[in-house]
């Protein structure tokens, strides 16, 4: 049972395009949604996160759009660069979980020059 779903296991875009990575979830109690970025051979690292009280969070070229009613969110990477090529994990948790995260299966993003 996948509580956090990432619709694409892989995505390829050209350099300069906007990459859009989608995520949906089942549990309406989830209130915190981080995205982690992982490069080959490394551990995941927090990229950007949003709380369920917000519908948008922006950090440089990275923006999360959040739709609480539809239980989905998306990560937009503007002006994609080859260095953005990595696996992106959508995750979620809720207040009483003690910072336990539930991860999606990840989306492998390839940015072609």
């Amino acid at each position, binding site marked *: 049972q996948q509580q956090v779903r990432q619709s694409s296991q892989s995505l390829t875009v050209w350099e300069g395009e906007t990459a859009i990575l989608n995520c949906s979830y089942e549990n309406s109690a989830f209130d915190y949604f981080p995205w982690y970025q992982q490069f080959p*051979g490394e551990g995941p690292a927090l990229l950007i996160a949003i709380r369920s009280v917000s519908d948008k969070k922006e950090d440089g070229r990275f923006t999360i759009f959040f739709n609480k009613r539809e239980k989905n969110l998306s990560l937009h990477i503007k002006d994609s660069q080859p260095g953005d090529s990595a696996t992106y994990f959508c995750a979620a948790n809720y207040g009483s979980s*003690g*910072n336990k995260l*539930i991860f999606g299966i990840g989306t492998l993003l390839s940015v072609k020059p």
Partner: protein
Amino acid sequence: EAAVTQSPRNKVAVTGGKVTLSCNQTNNHNNMYWYRQDTGHGLRLIHYSYGAGSTEKGDIPDGYKASRPSQENFSLILELATPSQTSVYFCASGERSNQDTQYFGPGTRLLVL
């Protein structure tokens, strides 16, 4: 900066053998976590800990034990390794709040023959 280290980085074990994976963090974080990463499954939580002396079962604890002898160290133990436990294992640390970053180590690649 947050620092989580894991040892060994690579391990080959035989079926039925005992394997111990070690994790050390210098962040003075209360929480520590063990995940495994497999293609098609993303990151799945095996065990976690809220502090020295405590261990809790995660989502896939069968076949694994954990030990938290100190704030800094958290071990994952496979008493009787099986080929299905071939995977990449990640340790992470984080604060107690549900909306705090988890800091991941570089991973241990385990092959069980």
